[in-house]
């Protein structure tokens, strides 16, 4: 098994696109689910959609949740609360990542695909913001 990924976005299309991209990197080895838009299909987030996505990707190795914007945090926390209700063993089962969505998802997909733990995958994703998009000649990295 590998760490599952949930992609939360205010846009259903954006979430699906990130799942497509991260899925290509994971080579079928990682469960990745989209939770984008509201239940009515508008822009926004849906606790129900996030909860459903958590159930889709759940496994023994835990789940990393990636978000497009910080305003998705509250709905995500509510979904996680509903998901883990009455399950004390789920204390460290789910991590919400602060990583930028696309880079974070791509990195998490690869790190999960090679069998790393939830904390290792989360740490790698969190470093995504340090990844330069443009490698300039005099880059200090």
């Amino acid at each position, binding site marked *: 098994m590998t760490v599952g990924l949930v992609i939360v976005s205010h846009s259903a299309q954006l979430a699906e696109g990130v799942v497509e991209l991260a899925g290509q990197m994971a080579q079928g080895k990682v469960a990745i689910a989209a939770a984008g838009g509201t239940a009515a299909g508008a822009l926004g987030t849906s606790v129900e959609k996030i909860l459903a996505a958590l159930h889709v990707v759940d496994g023994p190795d835990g789940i990393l949740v990636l978000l497009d914007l910080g305003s998705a945090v509250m709905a995500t926390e509510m979904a996680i609360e509903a998901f883990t209700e009455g399950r004390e063993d789920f204390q460290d089962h789910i991590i919400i990542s602060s990583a930028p969505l696309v880079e974070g998802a791509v990195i998490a997909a690869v790190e999960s*695909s090679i*069998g790393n733990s939830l904390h290792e995958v989360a740490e790698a994703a969190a470093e995504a913001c340090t*990844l330069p998009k443009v490698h300039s000649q005099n880059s200090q990295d």
Partner: protein
Amino acid sequence: MPVAEAYLVIKNKVGLHARPARLLVQTAAQFQSRIQLQQGEKSANAKSIIGVLKLGAVFGDVLVLRAEGEDAEKAVKTLTELVDRKFDEEE
């Protein structure tokens, strides 16, 4: 502890961008050995996607591949072949 080393010349046009880097990391992760890539002053764990992407290796770059562990020789051979095959994705 066995150690194996090789020079890698990046021969695919796009360099170590997302897909080749992903393939390199997933291949490296199949081995027990500790595997490092060195490019000039920069070095990276070959099993870390963020480390490999940060190297930013482009066409023509030369990297030193170094593996330490029981399967070091096999790891270096497999990874060298992968790079020489241009990651099986030639344009």
